[in-house]
């Protein structure tokens, strides 16, 4: 019996020995790159690291990174960045964000680091943090194109129209704009997204960061559009009573419930130079025939956002109604031109509109007429891209640049 057992053990050892040997050799081969000192420069290793990451060979990237760490100067800025990128590749997002934010603002890597950090936040639904990072990236490097685009994504989702306009304008200065881009720029001055889709996104964002006010506001607006009034109420509940954006929604919800008294009370209780709130107050006054109050509030709104169609249209109507004909005429003219532009934007929404040869030109002229000079410049840019020899477009761009320079010295 013992003999049999011994034989079995010997047989197992005989069979397993080579296997163990092979495993040991394999292990040595596996860790050899990490054990051996690299005979390469930091730049070469950094390039290898990039290749490994881009080809998704994350283990290899890790090995190269450790080799890079050994040879790179202690002050090499790529150390932290590459470590962050490695952590990101390995789905250790929090560590990646931590490393990215440890990169000093003085580093030339900082804009990229902030932007990547922002993108990680977006992926996780932490929109407020993302916005902060993208704004940092742009502050550090105003030519950070992707950070601008990311901000447009955020502002677009949340329909923060003024921020959206300003970011589009900045983007147009650092990156070529296609027909669709400029169209969306114009469109988002007054559009609404399908509310259900927004609700899904905003709910996710708020789950990731309940302190995200703008996602909360966007959620409430969308819920209201779907007449889910109680849920809309709940969405803005955490916001303070004197928050003007929340107050504006609360007043609208009261109106939706036929409670004009409550709406009036909410609007009266909040004093703020806030566009939406002033517009609400103006429209409320208008609907009740208090034209003087409506005029006052429309003027406030127009002062806060002089470029906003809604305030201009409101002023045109109310000034005419109270008999201030001369002033009304000025606003009416602007209001009419704005609505002419809106008609053209509708034309641009048609399928294949980008193939309508003179449409960008008409849009450019319409934008210029109403004083939307950055959009006009972008439309002329679309024309110039179509035909670089288009002298009208070139001249218009020059002309608008001059005007914008005067406007914003």
């Amino acid at each position: 019996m013992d003999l049999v057992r011994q034989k079995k053990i010997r047989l197992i050892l005989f069979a397993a020995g080579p296997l163990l040997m092979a495993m040991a050799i394999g292990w040595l081969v596996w860790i050899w790159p990490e054990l051996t000192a690299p005979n390469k420069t930091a730049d070469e290793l950094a390039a290898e690291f990039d290749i490994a990451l881009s080809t998704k060979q994350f283990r290899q990237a890790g090995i190269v990174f450790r080799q890079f760490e050994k040879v790179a100067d202690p002050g090499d800025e790529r150390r932290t960045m590459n470590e962050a990128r490695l952590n990101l590749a390995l789905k250790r997002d929090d560590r990646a964000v931590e490393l990215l934010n440890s990169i000093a603002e003085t580093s030339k890597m900082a804009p990229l680091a902030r932007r990547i950090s922002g993108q990680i936040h977006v992926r996780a639904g932490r929109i407020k943090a993302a916005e902060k990072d993208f704004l940092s990236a742009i502050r550090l490097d105003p030519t950070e194109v992707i950070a601008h685009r990311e901000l447009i994504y955020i502002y677009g989702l949340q329909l923060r129209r003024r921020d959206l306009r300003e970011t589009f304008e900045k983007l147009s200065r650092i990156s070529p704009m296609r027909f669709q881009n400029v169209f969306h720029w114009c469109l988002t001055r007054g559009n609404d997204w399908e509310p259900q889709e927004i609700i899904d996104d905003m709910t996710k964002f708020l789950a990731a960061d309940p302190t995200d006010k703008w996602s909360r506001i966007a959620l409430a607006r969308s819920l209201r559009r779907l007449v889910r009034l109680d849920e809309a109420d709940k969405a803005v509940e955490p916001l303070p009573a004197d928050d003007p954006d929340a107050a504006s929604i609360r007043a609208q919800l009261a109106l939706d419930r036929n409670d004009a008294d409550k709406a009036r009370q909410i609007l009266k209780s909040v004093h703020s130079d806030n566009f939406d709130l002033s517009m609400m107050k103006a429209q409320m006054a208008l609907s009740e025939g208090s034209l003087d109050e409506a005029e006052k509030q429309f003027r406030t709104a127009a002062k806060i956002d002089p470029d906003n169609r809604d305030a201009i249209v409101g002023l045109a109507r109310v000034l005419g109604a109270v008999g201030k004909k001369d002033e009304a005429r000025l606003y009416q003219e602007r209001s009419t031109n704005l609505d002419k532009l809106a008609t053209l934007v509708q034309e641009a929404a048609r399928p294949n509109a980008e193939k309508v040869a003179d449409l960008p030109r008409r849009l450019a002229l319409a934008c210029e007429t109403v004083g939307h000079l950055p959009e006009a410049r972008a439309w002329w840019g679309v024309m110039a891209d179509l035909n670089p020899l288009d002298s009208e477009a070139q001249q218009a761009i020059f002309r608008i640049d001059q005007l914008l320079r005067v406007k914003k010295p």
Partner: protein
Amino acid sequence: MIHQLFSRFTALPASVYTLTFLLIILSLTGCGKESPPANVNTTASPIVKSGTPEKENGPAEKKRNSGEGRMVGDRLSGVKSASTQTPVANQEPSPFKFTDITKDTGIDFIHISGMTEKKYFPTANGSGVAIFDADNDGLLDLYFLTNCPLPVNKDTAPSNKFYRNLGNGKFKDLTSESGLGYRGFSHGAIAGDIDRDGDQDIFLATFEDNRLLRNNGKGVFEDITEKAGIKQGKYFSSGGAMLDYDNDGDLDIYVSNYGTWDIKTDDNFCGDVDNNLRYYCSPRSIKTVPHLLYRNNGNGTFTDVAREAGVGRDDGHGFGVVTADINGDGRIDIYVANDMNPNFLFLNKGDGTFEDATEFSGAAFDVKGQAQSGMGIDAEDFDGDGRFDLFVTNFANEYNTLYQNMNNNGFYDVTTFVGLSADSMPMVGWGCGLVDFNSDGWPDVFVSNGHVDNNRAGINYEQQPLIWVNVPVSGRELVVKNSGAGAAERRKRRFKIATRDVGPYFESGHVGRGVAFGDLDNDGDVDIVVNHKDAPPAILRNDTPIGKNHWIRFSLKGGKSNPDAIGARVEIQLDPENQITRQVKDGASMLSVNDRRLLIGLGEKSPIVKARIFWPSGIISDHAGLEVDKMHEIREPSGQAAVENLKIEKPK
């Protein structure tokens, strides 16, 4: 993230594609494309590769090129997850009562839209219904229009149906005897006395085959389309209205065109490609064409003068039309609801041409400057200032819009502030009317609803109709005296949803389309007829208790003015403080014809009223000592000098 969204694009039906715009922005931003930022290349001098967002544009661009929509109001938008809070929750009982008497009337019409799984675009919009007195017997008859399967086959297409009102709540099918049994693809009807012979003739707005039918006075119609010079072509007409735009005493015809659509070239696939599930395409995929204005030459022929008259715009998917004196200058104007284009407003200049006031008006877009999906339409004075306000029904996630007339200085969207927004938001609204259903002197609102697609998960194809009652703000009558030139007193009024206990019809869903209003039983209140898509219609008898309220009805007969007195304004002085202003208008609602007679609710005020009529010719006639709760046929007086400059305020 964008990969997730894009994978949703390929995996889910188009009902969830509605963020395409956003996706385009997403692709523009390059955001969330799961671009592991780790893949960003860096060198000693970091050069950021943008992640080539253009490459991510594929699906979004693909959707766009397929003609699909993406914004609120587009056909692809829906009411998924809309509230159950609306419209009946927490309501007081409605003051209105309507009884669906369809089954007892003998009306056996069933609408055929031609809708199949292919979802040919023209089959989405349904048809209208006409309430008019075809045989001059003082009873309002009914004419139901129908579509048919596409392509049109005249031999097999169902026919429109005409029913004569027998006066006892019964109707008799006289389709074949009347000559109104047109077989084809009918959208809208327009009625009016085009030949001044004292009866109502009919214009049929159809898919590529408009018809003009002349009444011989006995309710028998002759097709005079070719003789009259009505243009045939590839127009996809919706509806329209009659008006005497040049004030020459005969009625001209405005026809709204939706666009052109050819089964061979325009049948695009819109919807869920993977599951081969088709939905109706976005209106944006339909090419718009100029609308038509047929001038009556006075000799039985007509000439399209749209371009010369200044109403030849070609950028509107036309639906409902109302012709009325909208700016109070004594001349008949035109307001057109357009589907995802600005609503047209053409103000009559008095010289045979119109000023295109579309972008001037404030009634082209909603309050944010967005073109909505205009379908039904009306013009009425909802706040008692003598100015005509405008109302337009729209698609889901938009609201039905009320534009307040600002002392004839244009219009302003006050929908949210008068209580009409929330309840209408989940609905796709069609035929509508600002009509006083309880004779209290204030126009209420009725809207028929129904979605376009019948095959989308989470979308109610059948939707409840909505009715609102016009009430004083804060429960008491508040008078506002506006300042400024042309200002008038108005009341603070708003609307309150009032669908609870109106009747069983209001408690269930329908696929409503055309709606007509008229007093079918001549009992002094306005009944409603709804033409449902692919279903029998509903004849809703108004059984609203009116208490001590009174009414008065006018049947106005033009002399120097057009025979139907379209554009005549009636001012009723109840007492020194109270005046009601109404107008004989045409069109309104959608694709349908309303009772031409003017039925005016008076409330509990004076039992005897004084009325002043401003005829389109400029003649003014005063009528005192009118008995209430009766009909008064009033002919335009002759011999009185026309009063010039009737206008309250000339439009700029």
